[in-house]
């Protein structure tokens, strides 16, 4: 497109922008503030700070903005919610429950839903925002892991992110337990069982937390204090630390023309990034509001108040608590009874061991990978998942384990909807949680390597043009054309994997004992980690391949010119 640059607008209006009220007033305010706060120096850099653009960088923003929505809607709910387990008779607007005895917590939840205008909207927004908060944190974490954004110098931000996920989950559990309805009460009942299963101190923990025997009258007020003060306070502090580190490290970016490890390319904070991020806040807020208004969530009035003698079929926790619940369902009935004491492996393993173990594995992943690869450099360019096949395969294996455990948490629903035997589903899941991740690991790793080979093929032989040529002898060949240089650079701008140390190298290094063993283990793991990866072509290989490709192209073109098939690439 040829453009007459003389017509290029230098402002956003048809007349040049003049310093009217706006900039002058802003300058005056900035001066006033700087003379008191001295922020000018810090702002000088940061007002035009560069943020790279990519759709996947938006996932963390969803988490951030849904957290803001949680704070706003949560404050609204505290104005009416009464965190008390005192028994009252419900006399509000909801007819089917009028006259029923329930806790003040449940009654005030019903009041918020039926007697405060917009109350149900806020309740449902709060719950939807919580779901979106945790879901977007998880997907954001997958993005960060699968693109290698967790590597040095960002490991600590990864750890903070893992803690945010943990706290978000606890915050969700304490939150949905507050209404004291039948479903959430059943969840608290199970939590009491989890605590009692803890070795030695279990019953004491339970009696202390519940202020006596389950259910007692203390659990809702105590969860309330945790839910609106303690955990949000820590969450807020960690979110702030997460953001500060992001600003300090500057955002990672994808490799591409002009985008290197040394620079960051994108839009300035003011105005474009601020406008996009700020506008996106309103979109997240708006979507959550629409969900809250149009889609019912946690209709506690249908569940009724908590009663320890009642339960409904299909009782399940919120989805993010589903995977330990699934493990709890498929674990065999393992309990040890010895010397008059009981060890409940059937509760300890799925609930007290697995979730903390999963968290520790997540936290350890960056450090483990850095140790195996021996990589001590800073990384600011993202890696495509295919270019780190083992890393990608590890996460897909973990995702498979998570997904299968989560599905096991719905084994009763699966049995009913799909007309299957719940026993057979359970037996299948017992095996699948072990075998599934292994299969997923192997498939993912090979798939990544195959994609790497595809990239190599495109670099060396060009892309498939879709033009088939028949030779005079009757053979068919497809014409390959060289990639545009930008695309070729994008594919080739990545690190080659280091060559792992050999056993001889390690043995000649003069190490002994434990250090030698550790070094050998590390070399072995590195060999497995990088095994079969495709390295990018060297300049020489590329040159030879291009030379060869040009030769083939000439031949094909000669055939086209000679033969009856006269379609050139321009016709396509």
């Amino acid at each position: 497109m040829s453009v007459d640059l003389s017509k290029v607008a230098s402002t956003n209006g048809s007349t040049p922008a003049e310093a009217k009220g706006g900039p002058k007033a802003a300058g005056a305010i900035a001066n006033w503030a700087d003379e008191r706060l001295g922020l000018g120096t810090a702002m000088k850099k940061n007002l035009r700070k560069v943020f790279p653009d990519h759709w996947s960088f938006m996932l963390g923003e969803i988490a951030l903005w849904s957290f803001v929505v949680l704070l706003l809607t949560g404050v609204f709910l505290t104005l009416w919610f009464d965190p008390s387990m005192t028994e009252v008779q419900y006399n509000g607007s909801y007819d089917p429950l009028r006259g029923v005895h329930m806790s003040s917590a449940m009654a005030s939840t019903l009041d918020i839903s039926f007697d405060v205008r917009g109350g149900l909207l806020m309740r449902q927004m709060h719950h939807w925002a919580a779901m979106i908060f945790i879901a977007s944190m998880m997907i954001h974490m997958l993005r960060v892991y699968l693109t290698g954004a967790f590597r040095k110098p960002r490991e600590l931000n990864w750890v903070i992110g893992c803690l945010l996920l943990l706290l978000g989950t606890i915050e969700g559990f304490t939150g949905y337990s507050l209404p004291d309805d039948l479903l959430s009460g059943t969840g608290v009942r199970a939590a009491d069982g989890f605590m009692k299963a803890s070795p030695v101190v279990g019953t004491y923990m339970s009696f202390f937390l519940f202020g006596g025997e389950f259910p007692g009258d203390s659990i809702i007020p105590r969860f309330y204090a945790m839910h609106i003060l303690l955990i949000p306070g820590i969450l807020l502090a960690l979110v702030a630390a997460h953001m500060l580190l992001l600003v300090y490290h500057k955002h990672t970016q994808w490799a591409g023309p002009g985008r290197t490890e040394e620079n960051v390319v994108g839009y300035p904070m003011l105005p474009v990034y601020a406008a996009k991020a700020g506008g996106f806040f309103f979109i997240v807020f708006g979507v959550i509001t629409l969900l809250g208004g149009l889609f019912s969530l946690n209709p506690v009035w249908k569940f009724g108040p908590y009663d320890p003698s009642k339960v409904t079929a299909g009782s399940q926790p919120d989805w993010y608590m589903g995977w330990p619940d699934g493990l709890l369902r498929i674990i065999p009935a393992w309990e040890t009874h010895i010397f008059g004491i009981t060890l409940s492996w059937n509760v300890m393993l799925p609930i007290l061991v697995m979730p903390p173990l999963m968290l520790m594995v997540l936290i350890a992943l960056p450090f483990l990978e850095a140790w195996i690869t021996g990589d001590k450099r800073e990384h600011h360019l993202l890696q495509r998942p295919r270019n780190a096949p083992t890393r990608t395969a590890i996460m897909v294996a973990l995702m498979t384990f998570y997904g299968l455990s989560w599905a096991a948490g719905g084994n009763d629903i699966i049995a009913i909807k799909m007309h299957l035997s719940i026993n057979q589903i359970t037996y299948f899941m017992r095996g699948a949680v072990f075998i599934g991740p292994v299969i997923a690991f192997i498939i993912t790793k090979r798939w990544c390597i195959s994609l790497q080979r595809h990239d190599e093929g495109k670099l060396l032989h060009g892309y498939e043009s879709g033009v088939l040529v028949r030779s005079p002898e009757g053979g068919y060949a497809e014409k390959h054309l060289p990639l545009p240089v930008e695309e070729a650079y994008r594919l080739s701008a990545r690190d080659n994997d280091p060559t792992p140390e050999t056993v001889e190298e390690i043995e000649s290094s003069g190490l002994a004992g434990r250090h030698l063993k550790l070094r050998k283990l590390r070399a072995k793991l590195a060999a497995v980690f990088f095994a079969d990866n495709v390295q990018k072509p060297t300049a020489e290989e590329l040159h030879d391949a291009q030379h060869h490709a040009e030769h083939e192209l000439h031949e094909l073109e000669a055939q086209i010119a000679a033969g009856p098939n006269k379609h050139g690439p321009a016709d396509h």
Partner: protein
Amino acid sequence: MSDAHNTDPHGGELAISEPIADPGLPAHTWRPTDVDPAKEKRAERQVAGFFGLSAICTVLFLVSYFTLDIDDDWHVFAGFGASTMALGATLGLSLMFIGIGIIHWSRKLMADNEISELRHPANSPEEDRTATLEALNLGIEESGIGRRPLIRNSLLGAMGLVGLPAVVLLRDLGPLPGDKLEHTIWGQGVKGKPMRVVRDGIWTPILASDLEIGDLVNCQPDALHNPERYDIDPTEVEGIAAQVHKSKASLVLLRMNPEDIKPGKDKDGNSRENWTVDGIVAYSKICTHVGCPISLNERTTHHLLCPCHQSTFDLADSGKVVFGPAGRPLPQLPLGVDDQGYLVATRDFDEPVGPSYWERDYYER
């Protein structure tokens, strides 16, 4: 030959590690709104239009708030749930239009030149690090903490101890468990008035003849409704106290063919054959896994299934676990009849009910 290798086909010099030289940032391309005043004006109108739509939605929100009722009466204006729906839809759209407007503005009208900024390594410059380390060492040196182990160690000891109050202060969160988990209100029957088994919710006593084979009844101890009959203070079975009792005492009755029942052994090794009345068995309703009330009855197999984690218990065989994660059988309540023929508990459960815990003993049925 070597010359050819150092130059890529597009004429750039090759970086040492990269097979293809960085072509550099692509040239900026102008958008239609940059070069065409008409398109620019249109975009400006669109942005303002979105903000206008948002304002309209906000007004509609206010109108909905003051006109729609949230009462659950179907006859009020616009009916049940309309208020929540209208408020959510109008507020949601009003917020979204603001967001869409701002983003449209940034994409169409704000300068779209990508700019580049240099990164800096995360660590501080070497001289700063050295200076900081020196300052740190000087500070430690001047404090003398290294030279005065008595002060250091006594401080560490005192600080370690001062953590104790934080733990001790939590002691009054709740009472000690004692033997509370080992007893239920079923054992509080008095002489001549053993604890009746009554229907949950309607509190009526049960005759053995009321139940057909295969019938399952959810039951509670009569004392929760009739405390005076058992010399129990009514405040002990009200509100929270009632919930605590129910969480241990909830019971299921199931009548089956007496020949199907395989009586197990009780705690002392005696047979449980006289724990049933005419094929009616009574078991704790609280799952021995994590404490959900069990309620799914498989009528033909006398199996009882917990809806939470699918532990399945065989009520004809001492409540043994036939499937699922629960680690021990359901506790059985010994049944009898009182002088009026109503079903009663002859005594309390002979083991704790509900989820397992560390101090719990176990015996083979």
